[in-house]
Every structure is written in C-alpha cells, then in structure tokens.
C-alpha cells in the first residue's frame, strides 16, 4: 500500500480515538459537576481543559471554568483548533483519502457518524443535550471499531489502523492519569484515612474503568491500586501495558508482512521489556509524574518512527 494511505489510515483512527477519549473525559466531568457542584465542579472542568492541553487557548477567551463553556469549547468552538468536531472532520477526510483501503462498511460508519455529529454540533450544546452528544460520539467510535473489526482484511492496512488507535489511547491514558493524579495530590497526604473516593472514582470514570476496577477490587479505592491498574493491568483495554501489548502485536505483524525488522518494532519490544520488570513500587519510587511524562515522550518517538519506517512522507 501507499505510504500516504498508511498515514491516512493511521491518523483516521488516531483522531477517532482522540474524539472518543475526549468524550469520556467530558462525561466524567459532567458527572462530577452534577454530584458535587460549586468549586469542586469548577476544578473538575479546569482539569478537563488541562488534560487536553488547551488551557492557554481557553483562558484567552474565558475567565472562569463553567460546564457549558468548557463543553462548548471542547466540542465545537471554532476558536479551538482541536475541538471534537474538528477531530471528526479530520478523521473523515483521512477516511476519504484512504477510501480505497477501508471497506465500505468502515467508510459508511465514519461518514454517518460525521453527519450526525455535524448536525448535533451545529448549535451550542446545552446541558440537557450534552448526554446525547457524548453518547453519540462514543457510539460512533464503537460503530467504526466494530465495522473495522468485522469487515477489514487482516492486511497491513488493518495493522496501521490498530497502531493508530493504540498509540493515541496510550497517550490519552497516561495524560489523564498524570493530570488527575496531580490534581489529587493534596488528598494523597491522607492516604489511608478519609480519602475522597468520589474523586478517585472520577479518574476511573474518565477512562471507563470504574466498573472493572470495582469488580476486581471489591470496591476498595486506593491511589496505588488505581495507578497500578491503569498502568500495568494486562486485561484492561485502556491500560498502558495493554495498549503496548497490542502495539507490539500489530507492529510485529507489520514487520513480518514486510519481511524487514523495523525501528518502531524494536522500540516497542524494548518498552515491553521494561514493563515486565516494572512494578507500581518502582514507579512510585522514581515518581509517577516522571514516569508518565517519560512514557509519553517515548510514545511520541515511537509514533514518529512508525511514520519513518513505513514512508508516511516523501
């Protein structure tokens, strides 16, 4: 396949994943605001903007963090070049550019999702309509994922799609954990005492991990346990380890298909080796923040080397 097309497939799935993760983040913020209100709600909305790295743009326009403002900024504000609608625009134009590589089912799933969202986001989103919009974004992502899984040949195209998804997802999980953890640091001093479980619950919700975590830990909440789960659990589909296991599998298949070992695959094998010897204790000893920022920097290097290995650009 063409290098440019591989790039389009890769980015199409990155943008879809990014849109979905953003929707999760807003959903968790929305829930927090509903249950707490007041300053905690505003802090929560601020952390959403922080996690997305959009504080400079947001604060240039607004003085305060309110739910409606944050949601509209993140979802549809034209001043925000990384709004969710724009992610769908980019996902769709990348799908159009790789139209001959994806199946009709995948294209229709992307195109229909884009049409529904264009319609839903053509006007400002009110609090009463937010649930519908966020559910639609998640449903769209699910639809595309299902169409991809069910209809695409397991050729290199499929592996580029999956690679895009997991590079983006790993980045997003690490970022959410980093920002939320930082926000919750004050309460960490009280570890073991009156921990604000609802805030921790919110970290998990931002990653749709609350149910799985509760189920595995019989309802106990602790900072270490949550970080361990989101970083090292082999079964949870948004954990860093899980994302890298998938990346390793897909990059491995790509190297096999091409009959050439790749730089990116070598890097992912190395990263997997590091995961195997990492425990939550070693992470906390050297600092969670340092671990997560280091992880994301390396994730970016891997993404760049995929683009280089497979000639995304001339």
């Amino acid at each position: 396949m063409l290098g440019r097309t591989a790039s389009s497939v890769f980015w199409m799935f990155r943008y879809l994943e990014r849109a979905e993760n953003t929707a999760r983040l807003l959903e968790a913020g929305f829930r927090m605001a509903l249950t707490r209100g007041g300053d905690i709600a505003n802090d929560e909305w601020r952390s959403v903007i922080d996690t997305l790295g959009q504080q400079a743009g947001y604060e240039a326009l607004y003085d305060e963090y309110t739910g409606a403002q944050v949601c509209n900024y993140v979802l549809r504000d034209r001043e925000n070049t990384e709004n969710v609608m724009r992610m769908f625009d980019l996902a769709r134009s990348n799908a159009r550019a790789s139209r001959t590589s994806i199946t009709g089912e995948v294209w229709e799933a992307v195109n229909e999702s884009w049409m529904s969202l264009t319609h839903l986001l053509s006007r400002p989103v009110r609090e009463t309509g937010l649930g519908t919009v966020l559910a639609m974004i998640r449903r769209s992502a699910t639809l595309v994922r299902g169409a991809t899984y069910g209809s695409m040949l397991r050729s290199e195209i499929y592996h580029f799609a999956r690679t895009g998804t997991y590079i983006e997802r790993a980045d997003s999980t690490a970022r959410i954990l980093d920002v939320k953890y930082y926000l919750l640091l004050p309460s960490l001093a009280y570890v073991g005492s009156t921990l604000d479980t609802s805030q921790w619950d919110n970290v998990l919700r931002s990653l749709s991990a609350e149910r799985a975590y509760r189920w595995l830990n019989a309802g106990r909440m602790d900072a270490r346990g949550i970080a361990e789960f989101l970083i090292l659990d082999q079964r949870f589909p948004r954990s860093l380890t899980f994302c890298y296991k998938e990346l390793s599998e897909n990059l491995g298949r790509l190297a096999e298909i091409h009959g050439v070992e790749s730089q990116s695959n070598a890097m992912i094998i190395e990263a997997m080796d590091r995961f195997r010897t990492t425990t939550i204790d070693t992470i906390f000893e050297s600092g969670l923040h340092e671990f997560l920022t280091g992880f994301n920097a390396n994730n970016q290097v891997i993404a760049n080397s995929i683009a280089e290995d497979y000639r995304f650009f001339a």
Partner: protein
Amino acid sequence: MNTPDPNFDEMRQADGTIRPAYVDYCQWLDEQDASQMRRKGREAENFFRRTGITFNVYGDDDAEERLIPFDMVPRIITGSEWRKLSRGIEQRVRALNAFMHDLYHRQEIIRSGRLPERLFTNNDAWLPQMVGFTPPGGVYTHIVGIDLVRTGPNEFMVLEDNARTPSGVSYMLENRETMMAMFPELFARIPVQPVSDYPRRLAKSLAACAPDGASDKPMVAVLTPGIYNSAYFEHAFLADQMGAELVEGSDLRVVDGRVQMRTTAGYQPIDVLYRRVDDDFLDPLTFNPDSMLGVPGIMDVYRSGGITIANAPGTGVADDKAIYSFMPEIVEFYTGEKPLLPNVPTWRCAEPDSLAYVLDNIAELVVKEVHGSGGYGMLIGPTSSRREIAKFKDKLKANPTNYIAQPTLALSTVPIFTKSGLAPRHLDLRPFVLVSPGGIDITPGGLTRVALKKGSLVVNSSQGGGTKDTWVLND
C-alpha cells in the same frame, strides 16, 4: 433540417399510449402505492449521503460536497435501439482514435484538405510533445464518453465527444445499485442488461494497453488531484472497484527511468496510469511548471515507452467543438463509411456566412464556446433576455472563431417523480466506451442526465441537473 416532434417523450406517445420500452415498467408502476414511492425517494437520498456519493461544484465554497439529485424513474432503451446505437458509437470512437494518431503523425486529413489547419494550430489541447510518438498499443482514447441526445423514435444525435477525461461513470454504477436495492422485484420482472462489470472491464482494458515489457499482471494506478477535487469520489470508487492503487502526484517519482509510487515497502513501478489530472498539470517539467498535481519527468518516461498514460496526453483536441463540427468528415475519412450517428447541425462562427446566419438568428440558437464544457459560457437563445443576447453578440463578434452555434433541439423527455406526480423532463445520455488493442467495449447504458426544472434544456450536474438509472433491455 426537419423539425422533429417538439414533444418526443420516450415513455408515452402523443396519444398517451406507452411506448414498447416502458410497457413492463409502467405496468409495475401502476401497482405501486404513491406514498410508498415518495418514501423510497427519500430513502434514495439517504443512501447517497451515507455512501458519500457527492459532487463538488467549482467556485462554490459553502458546498464542498453536494449530492447530484437522483430520480427513480429509469430511462429505458430497447435492445434493438441499443444495438443500432452501439454500432454508431463504435464507429465514431474508432475514427476518433485514428484521427488522433493522424494528427500527431502525417496529418493526412489536413493534407487532403478535409480539415483546415487552423483547427489544431488554434487549439490549446494540441501538444507538440506528442508529435511522432505512438502510445503503447496505438491507443489514444482509452476511455471515451459520447454525449447523445434524442429527438425522435429513431433519431439519436451526438452532442459532444469527451475524449479527454469523461467523468460520471460512478453514477452509472451507483444509480443501478440504488435501483436494485430499492426495487429488487423490478429486476426480477424486467430483463435489464447489467452494468456492474464495468470496473472489471476497465481494469482489463487498461491492462491490455500496458507498455511492452510489462508483466502479465501490469500495475495499474489511478492518479487523482486529491480529496478536494470535484470527482474525487469517482476516482476512489473506480480504483477501489478495480483493485488499483489510488495515487496523488506526491506519491509518485521517477526512479530508474520508471514512474514509481511510494509504498510502505519502498518505491514500486507503475505500468498503466489512469490519470484524472489534466494534461497541463501532468508534468511540471514539460507543461505547467507550477503544477503540484503531476509527476516531474513522467513525459520522458512516457516517450521512452516506460508507462502508459490513459487517456494519452493531447487527446483533448477532440473535445473541441470546432473539431466536433467536422466529425462527419472525420468518420468518413478514417473508416471509409458513412457516419451511423449524425452530429447536431452546427454553424462554425469562424466562417463568415455562418457567422452572419448565427447573428441574424441568435434568438433561436444555442451558441457555445469551442473549448467550453459543463454548460458554462454558452447562450441559449430562446431562454435568454434581449440584454443577455446583445451582450453575447458583442463577445461573438469580437472573437467569432471561439464559437459554434446549434439549433435549440427539442430534446426528448422521460418523466421524473415530482411532488405532484410524474412530469416529463429533458435528458441526454453518455455511454462509456473502452478502447484497447483488443477492441472497443461499450457498457450497455451509460449515464442519463436529466434537467430537473420544467422545460429546461441544461442537464449538467454543475447547474442543477440530476441523473437516472439507464436500462438497456435484454430483448
């Protein structure tokens, strides 16, 4: 010229009797519930939006993607009408290809005095770079669209030849898919000749034109200007259906004397390039130096026999309406036969007598620019105001060689569905013709374009025209 019946409707005779081609269809239609048919109409639109069959109109920023309206009433041609038509089309396309070869070689037709030399010295589409060069397999016009209009029971005429890059074939295919999805029972009742194998026939025809030395399975690629081009949907659609790569100029480079595409595994040579990029943008080293859409050096590779370009550069000469006016002579010169398909009578304004006639009768005529297309830059006398006519006359007098004129034809009609039931609308037909050393292949049917406004003669999709599924019956 004899004036045809001004209201030739392909479905009904003047007394209301259904014509043979439509008998079975109309019988079926009578059994349908009107409200259900209206619902089907909306279904069709949703289908097109979902699959992304869109068309962008140049110069219309707000509507990057627009749907071409689809009408559910098919345009039906009987098998015997089609057989006669396709003989005429084949003859014309054979002549076109021979004409191209001659124009770029000995120019016998000019030496013999049948065609004035000014026609191609004046023609921007004529490329000196093609002189003395014969494309692989001797094929110039790999894909041709012949625009036909009908004015009577046995009267089809050629309105235009599209030898450069005829578009619209994806609508021919998707219109049929839509009809089969909406009305499967119709196709069980009425034997309609299939069109769905067009992409396979195209792939085969292009592969047969590969340069000498290409493998048994030549590498075919479709070159598109990119996703913002108005016909991008069609480029992607055809590449997908043929199993060919869809490439952009930025994917291609000349490496080791071949045109190669950048794949995830490195550069790979291409044997046949079905390009949907105009000549001018094909090679910045040879043509427009600012072009980002083409491949620097592709013309050198082409001239050394390293790649087939379809259609060949320089075939746009035949799209010129002044050349068109000589097609009857051209057909006779190269085939030695009388043309089976007539032209629409045409006055060349370059000739003083004709110009005088056109100026005197402009209110009854259609005047077109010789290089124009898409229904732009033309005057339809009967529907234009006196001011528009006066303005157009000035342009015409200033540069008469730039214009031809034709009578305002009473184009045939077929009904479309409207809110108030069936209503006749004017239409034309563009069959698609494939040329390879193996022969000429015409897919039964083509693209029917229909004017949606009552009485309108402009069927172009860029000006609000729609399309219909085109049936050739298996009788």
